[in-house]
């Protein structure tokens, strides 16, 4: 178990290192440089910035230095001070902008995962135990549909329905009166009342996929001899299904979390853009469009690291749940 954890953690660290390089490359990629962009933004907002100041900023951000020196400086800042660089557009350290939003992003992501599990597991079990029943076909069809409908389209349609039928703006995570209020039960309830929409949107496509996985896994397990044994023992059908095949079918399921996390993150991102959620998605899009690359790089990096950590957690969970892997 220890070895397993060590190995996985090392792999995760290596991945994170590669991610940092990729993120740095992203920062460096755009033509021109972010200072130019920054100046343009200032001008758009009505400010005037003289050339000398641009030169000063170039100096300050070490833009003349070779790539690897810049990378080294950037990484050192992150590791030593948690300094991801400054957002050019906002003029403050990136880290000051991100943490709140990351919290909410993780929250939307986690609640989506929860939603997906709560829906996908029972439905998958049902579909497998009632293979070829009408409901099974229905779920399969909905599953395909869920895979085919892009998140943003679903978000758009929900927004449209919310607006044109109920005259409500379904975007955001809080009602205006709560958005800057301190945490309270009222605010939490308010958050929940908004959260279900992104949860549903992000969850749908993934749910579809997972229902299919769960069903397939279940079908794999449901006729295994150990299930027969359990049945022969005289267990009730309900109990034996949930104790044995579901339990085993969940293992590959847990491991799919690793691969599903990137999808969920993407889903949260694009949905948040449509629904104007105070998560990291709109910030990333804006950073990219205005080429605020320290910000964009930091976001890509943090999202990726979170994903890697999520995958690591799911690996560990899998090891906890599956004795076979634990002892590998």
């Amino acid at each position, binding site marked *: 178990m220890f070895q397993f954890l060590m190995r996985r953690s090392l792999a995760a660290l290596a991945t994170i290192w590669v991610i940092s390089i990729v993120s740095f490359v992203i920062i460096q990629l755009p033509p021109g440089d972010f200072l130019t962009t920054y*100046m343009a933004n200032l001008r758009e907002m009505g400010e005037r910035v003289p050339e000398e100041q641009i030169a000063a900023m170039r100096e300050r951000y070490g833009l003349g230095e070779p790539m690897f020196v810049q990378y080294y400086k950037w990484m050192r800042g992150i590791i030593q001070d948690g*300094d991801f660089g400054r957002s050019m557009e906002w003029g403050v350290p990136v880290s*000051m902008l991100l943490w709140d939003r990351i919290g909410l992003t993780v929250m939307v992501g986690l609640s989506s995962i929860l939603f997906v599990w709560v829906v996908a597991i029972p439905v998958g079990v049902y579909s497998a135990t009632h293979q070829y029943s009408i409901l099974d076909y229905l779920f399969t069809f909905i599953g395909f549909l869920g895979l085919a409908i892009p998140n943003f389209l679903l978000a758009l349609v929900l927004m449209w329905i919310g607006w044109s039928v109920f*005259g409500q703006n379904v*975007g955001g995570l809080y009602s205006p009166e709560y958005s800057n209020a301190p945490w309270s039960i009222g605010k939490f309830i308010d958050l929940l009342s908004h959260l279900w929409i992104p949860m549903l949107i992000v969850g749908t496509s993934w749910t579809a996929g997972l229902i299919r996985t769960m069903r397939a896994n279940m079908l794999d397990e449901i006729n295994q001899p150990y299930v027969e044994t359990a049945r022969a023992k005289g267990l009730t059908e309900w109990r034996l299904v949930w104790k044995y095949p579901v339990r085993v079918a969940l293992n590959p399921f847990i491991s799919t979390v690793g691969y599903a996390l990137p999808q969920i993150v993407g889903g949260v991102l694009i949905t948040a853009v449509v629904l104007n959620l105070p998560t990291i998605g709109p910030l990333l899009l804006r950073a990219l469009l205005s080429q605020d690359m320290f910000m964009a790089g930091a976001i890509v990096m943090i999202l990726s690291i979170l994903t890697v950590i999520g995958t690591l957690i799911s690996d560990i969970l899998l090891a906890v749940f599956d004795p076979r892997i634990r002892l590998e």
Partner: protein
Amino acid sequence: MGKNGLSRRDFLKASAAAAAAVVAARNVPVTSAAPLRQGMYKEAPMLADLVAAGDLPPVEQRLPVNPRVITPTHEVGQYGGTLRRAFKGLSDRWGPVKLSEEGAIQWDAPDPENATLVANYISEWSQNEDASEYVFTLREGLKWSDGMPFTTEDVQFYYDKIFIPQLHTRPGPLQVGLTGEGDEGIMQLEVIDELTWKVSFSTPNPLFVLRFGNDTMGMIAGPSMAAPKHYLEKFLGDADTADQALIDAAMAANGVTTWQELWYESGPGDARGPINFFFRNPDLPVINPWRSLNSPLDDPWVMERNPYYHAVDTEGNQLPYIDGMSHALFQETETLNLWIAQGLIDMQQRHVSSANFTFFKENEEAGDYKVVTWKSATTNAFHPNISHPDPAIRAVFDVAEFREALSIAINREELNELVYSGLLEPRQASPVSGSPNFDPEFETKWIEYDPDRANQLLDDLGYDQRDGDGYRLRPDGERLAFTITYSEALSNMNPDEVQVVTSYWEAIGIQISQQVLERSLLEERNRAGDIEIGVWPVDRSSVVMGDPRRYTGTIDDGCWAPNYAIYMADIVYGDGTTDRPFVLEPPADHPVRRIAELWDQVQKEPDEATRNALFKEIMDIHKEHPYMIGTVGEDPAPVIVKNYVGNVGSGFINDDTMRNVGIARPKQFFIRS
């Protein structure tokens, strides 16, 4: 335009008034109304409570001896309430800033017809005969928002610690209009007494006051030409007055590692760091009607009234009426639009686009607001680059008949209907109808849709041969083909317009391809000077003399003659260096030369009549054969005003030069209970 409330005639009146303002600024000392008697002042209930509790001195002691008296736009208002607005976050500073900035001299318009420059926190100003010296007098008893007196010490502090350091890295606040070279050109300060100071220039600087009206000279939204010494001196890390504990705390809170970064957001000369910009520092003493309560990183960001604000209304009520403002954060303008329709916005002009006019109108009832229209001093325009590095392209564009053909090939009526629901005005890129430089002849130059004549003109220019695809050929056999380069972020100009204009030009046999750039790249390309046809609205067209860079061609996002204009600017201003890859010397008799010379003269000409005549000549060169091909303009600039919000006037000119929303004097807006 009559259909939307403001008639063309109203605008002409406004233009006369704006012209008058410039006259007023010349040499007549402007003094505020006589002080009202003590004991006559009233204050907001929230402040009265504080006074009663002993936490605040009485209103008479907080106001200057002679407070500024502001005549409300419609009526004397009521106290209280929080005005809800929306903003895009820290980078969207101009929304809150323009609502609450306090210059020494400020544009002020009780109604659209009477826009003038008035003394704000100063009681008066004067200038000498050749406009090289200006004397300013503070209102006696003026106080910062923390109750500390505002004196010429604060002016001196600003001059020494903010203005002069800026000069080391930039040639001085551009808009102050420094003339001359080297140190002689620098504005000199002389403090006369506790209330009076004088600035002087080595050469006449008659546009100083005009420019002062739209620039706070480095301290954004601070009092122009002053800074709260008693507070800021503690943050000067290299001075005796430094308070290291405060500096450390501020550095930690803002995630920076040097005290300089507290002052300068991104390098010396950029005095809007986290410590000296009220938007970011709730502790910074201000003289604005509202001060910041939290960080703009918070959502919402809120402002609260300044108990020491220096102005009263005609009945002696201390302003502002509104207790505070609350700015909700949005990422996409779409969200703001939905908030408006849901009635979540009390008053908003910034980010409200006339493209959504119908939507706003239709939801007036649901959102309990009305759409008030102003008038943008803007004309959408296409800019064929007459200074393009490729001589063949220059040869095509720098011919008046060719530009005329381009211009009259555009069906402006249809374009207006198609893209702007007919809300804008077909016009040439020229000063808007409220401007002192308005010229109806210029406005209508080359705007009649006449594709036949356009074709004829092109034929006559020798582009009468066509290739297999129906495109015209240049005499050298090349196809007549150009690229329109633009950005999706075009202020209020709708990118759809480019699609439509493209098809008009294709229809007269010119092949047009499109290139969409991020705004920054557009500017970079423009500075490189190799854009073929640029797209940008011609703004700053109200008090054009206040900021004529569109017409002189020296603004960074204007593209009609970048390479020539910068060459000329170098010659004229003698600064000699430029980082532009292409700087082209204009041909000997090119009008660009004349424009640059004229502008140089205008800036130094103390005599107003002569100055105006010289400036008119610049405009006439443009009128002769417009370089910027205007399409439609005078955007109605919708303003969303909740029905319970009072004193928001309509019909104002919306222009950066006149500080956009600022000209409607937000301090006298009020919320009807």
